[in-house]
């Protein structure tokens, strides 16, 4: 088992408060790895650190042997890491197809100059990018909505559109941030089969989620965070029976009660 | 010619000049410093860079001029006019803060910038209508014009000029020191001051513990306007007052705020003082026409080297050693 992504002593502080504290684990290629934990455990922060949206304050992230921590997000995207967002971050001012076409940014080459003067090949590339985008929309079942403004799509489809947009970069590692939250049971079922399909196409998946049943049923490995620290790691069954994990979740329930 | 002796004599002979430049530079610098503090008050509680900050300075200068010395004005005593001018600026400042409430929620930097620029132009326009476009001379705060300080001849050599200590410059420095002291007290000892600090650290958290964030925002604008107005009233007798004085003063105050590190109180005060002194020296020894360009060159330089301000640069150096 080769590690695709390796996280060592990863730390992120906000004004002295440690959101992620000395976390180390690795993600195996071709698998579905889930990151879980109670509210405020630092899950989203960790995902933001991997995608470069936030720079870490300590520790190292290695991707296929190359250090990526500290790189700006667009550079990390070039390495082949794509993501979705907890609060959908679509380009609401654009259509569904256009959203996915932005996902093809790294797979096309037009420059400001060539676009201005419509130089040789601009129109052909533009056509190709659109065809590619439609293909990715097809994969998530949104082909019919291609020309609908992203803002007019129902929430569940917006989530799917974000996945299509991320897939359009042809990533090797896909980060899903709470992809199931806000979805109906049927939509969740569709999401699960989509995730399997993506995995089967050779994309490694690292997901953060709240939904225990979903996480336990589909992931190959689980990492548990609490108060920014890693408290457990292993197969879903092993983690479910870990005393510290149970304590952490029980604590949360006690706090809610 | 024996060079070293000659050189030393020249420096000694220039000592009164240097002290003079230092003194007037410090006065102008105190103005930049409190304008910078005005920026900081608003920035730290709202994250807004208020492009109308300079206009508060203009309002302070023009209103106090009109109340005290204008031909058709009410000829009030200064002691009454100064608080009134500050009050006028605070009203305008609160209005601006109130107008910004809605766009603040959308958190679009672009629209915030544009609205404060618009407000700046609006005040500009109204002032030029009310008071005309010509700069006006403003009477100093007290009648005593100043003191001549003759340095001992042993230091300067014979025939040296005395250093002139202007009363208005002393007023400016005194008021600036007072503003800084009052602000320190305000932020550390009063409830509303503490609330403002809480909002600057964590807006959402402040709302949760029951702080009225909108009131704090309006309060920050009013406070900042008051600070600006004091600066304006104090500098007007030295620089004259006009409807357009705010743009340049505001920019220099902003330069000081950036150099000191946006949001950093002591940093912006020190940077303001230094800026005033350096500007004064460069005007005398380099070029007087380009005096106003000097502050911006420093501003651009700081943005290139260390956008978090010079203080941050030193801090980073120390951390890396």
């Amino acid at each position: 088992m080769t590690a695709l992504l390796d996280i060592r002593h990863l730390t992120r502080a906000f004004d002295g408060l440690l959101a992620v504290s000395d976390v180390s684990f690795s993600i195996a290629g071709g698998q579905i790895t889930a990151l879980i934990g109670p509210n405020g455990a630092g899950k989203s922060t960790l995902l933001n650190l991997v995608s470069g949206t936030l720079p870490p304050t300590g520790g190292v992230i290695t991707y296929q042997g190359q250090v990526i921590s500290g790189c700006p997000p667009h550079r990390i995207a070039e390495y082949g890491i794509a993501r979705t967002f907890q609060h959908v971050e679509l380009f609401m001012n654009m259509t569904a197809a256009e959203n996915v076409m932005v996902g093809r940014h790294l797979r096309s080459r037009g420059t400001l100059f060539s676009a201005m003067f419509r130089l040789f090949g601009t129109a052909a590339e533009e056509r190709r990018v659109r065809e590619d985008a439609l293909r990715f929309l097809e994969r998530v079942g949104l082909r019919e909505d291609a020309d609908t403004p992203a803002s007019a799509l129902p929430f569940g489809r917006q989530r799917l559109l974000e996945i299509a947009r991320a897939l359009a970069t042809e990533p090797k590692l896909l980060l899903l941030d709470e992809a199931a939250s806000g979805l109906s049971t049927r939509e969740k079922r569709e999401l699960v089969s989509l995730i399997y399909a993506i995995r089967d196409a050779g994309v490694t998946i690292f997901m953060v989620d709240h939904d225990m049943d979903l996480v336990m049923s589909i992931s190959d490995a689980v990492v548990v965070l609490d108060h920014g620290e890693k408290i457990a790691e292993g197969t879903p069954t092993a983690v479910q029976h870990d005393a510290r994990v149970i304590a952490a979740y029980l604590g949360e329930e006690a706090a809610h009660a | 010619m024996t060079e070293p002796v000659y050189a030393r004599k020249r420096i000694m002979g220039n000592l009164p000049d240097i002290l003079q430049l230092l003194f007037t530079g410090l006065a102008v610098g105190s103005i930049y410093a409190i304008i910078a503090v005005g920026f900081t008050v608003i920035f730290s509680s709202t994250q807004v860079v208020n492009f109308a900050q300079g206009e508060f300075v203009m309002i302070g200068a023009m209103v106090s001029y009109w109340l005290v010395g204008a031909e058709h004005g009410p000829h009030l005593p200064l002691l009454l006019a100064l608080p009134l001018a500050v009050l006028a600026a605070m009203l305008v400042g609160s209005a601006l803060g109130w107008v910004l409430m809605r766009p603040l929620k959308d958190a679009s930097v672009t629209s915030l910038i544009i609205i404060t620029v618009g407000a700046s132009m609006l005040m500009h326009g109204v002032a030029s209508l009310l008071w005309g476009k010509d700069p006006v001379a403003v009477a100093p705060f007290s009648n005593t014009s100043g003191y001549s300080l003759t340095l001992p001849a042993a230091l300067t050599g014979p025939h040296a000029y005395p250093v002139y200590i202007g009363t208005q410059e002393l007023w400016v420095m005194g008021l600036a020191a007072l503003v800084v002291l009052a602000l320190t007290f305000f932020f550390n000892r009063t409830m509303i001051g503490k609330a403002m600090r809480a909002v600057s650290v964590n807006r959402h958290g402040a709302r949760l513990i029951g702080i009225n964030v909108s009131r704090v925002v309006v309060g920050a604008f009013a406070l900042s306007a008051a600070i600006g107005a004091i600066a304006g009233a104090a500098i007007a007798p030295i620089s004259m007052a006009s409807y357009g004085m705010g743009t340049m003063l505001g920019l220099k105050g902003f330069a000081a705020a950036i150099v000191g590190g946006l949001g950093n109180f002591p940093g912006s005060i020190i940077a303001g003082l230094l800026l005033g002194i350096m500007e004064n020296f460069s005007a005398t020894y380099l070029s007087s026409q380009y005096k106003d360009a000097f502050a911006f060159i420093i501003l651009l330089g700081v943005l290139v080297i260390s956008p978090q301000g010079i203080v941050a640069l030193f801090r980073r150096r120390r951390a890396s050693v």
Partner: protein
Amino acid sequence: MSRVRPSPTLISVLLGIALVALAPCVVTNSYALVPLTFIAIYTILVIGLNMLMGYAGQVSLGHAAFFAIGAYTSAILSTQYGCSPWAAMPAGMALAGIVALLVGMPCLRLRGHYLAMATLGFGMIVYILLMEWPDSPPLLLATLGRLLHLPASTPWPFTGGASGLPDIPALAIGSFVFHTNLQKFYLTWAFAILALLLCANIVNSRVGRALRAVHGSEAAAATLGVNIAAYKIHVFVLSAILAALAGSLYAHAVGFISPPTFNFIRSVDFVVMVVIGGMASIWGAVLGAGTIVLLGNWLQDVGAKFPRLAEFDLIIHSAILILVMIFMPAGIVCTARDAVLRRLRGRATAPAAAAPAHSEEVATP
């Protein structure tokens, strides 16, 4: 892009050409063509500023300085160095582009207000330079010139200080000189339509899409591989080049330039034009430039009768700025268009979920 039906850009451009070609049939008074010529000139500048504000989310308060760089480079090269105006024009554009790169590089990696303040300061520096430009080379430059063996007769550029530069030659093709108001009208509008076409091409391209994406959500655009800082610099430089082009056209069309045309207030006027037309809508540039130029003209006419009223232009402009930004942040054109469309469709499809606020803050635990 389907090949079957013509693109909306093409239709707009053809419509624009037709309108411009026919305008002189309606506007028969040749003096009335002068403001229309100014609209074309300002449109060129405003398109660039519009892209900067709308797509890169940055405000420049110093575009009058780039306008000045174009105008003064053109004027100085063509009157003092004997250059052809056609050579002077790209020289000014190149200079503005380089200067924009230098000013923009440090600021555009930071958040919005830095560029605004830096350009405001930059505008002031340029204005001071125009006013106070020395009549002879400063010692340092003179020495440098001697070291580089420049002939002593090399003329030192001259800005004319506060009194400005007169007698700037008009543009000409061969022996055909663009001299009359009508000729200048056609010439400037040809440039304006070309600029509109080129910028529309950008908006509908890979780069334009990336820019619109940045406008929609910076965080998401970055994770798709869009180098946001680089694109912001590209747009800033492009906008400076367009401003210089406009400045150069202004110099050759009017024949006389002086510093007050290029002061800070003018920079704000350009921002007002963008805001009226609506950010991120390059066709709005025409409307924004048109409104402000015609409003200024009208105020001047009225001002002949009521002198005090002419001083209201600043107040009116700033009131427009504030009101539009608060109540119609999308600009007058887009807001009106959306309102009409909504009426027509009868609110058929309401968006399911309101677009979440795209704040730059990243979710903290």
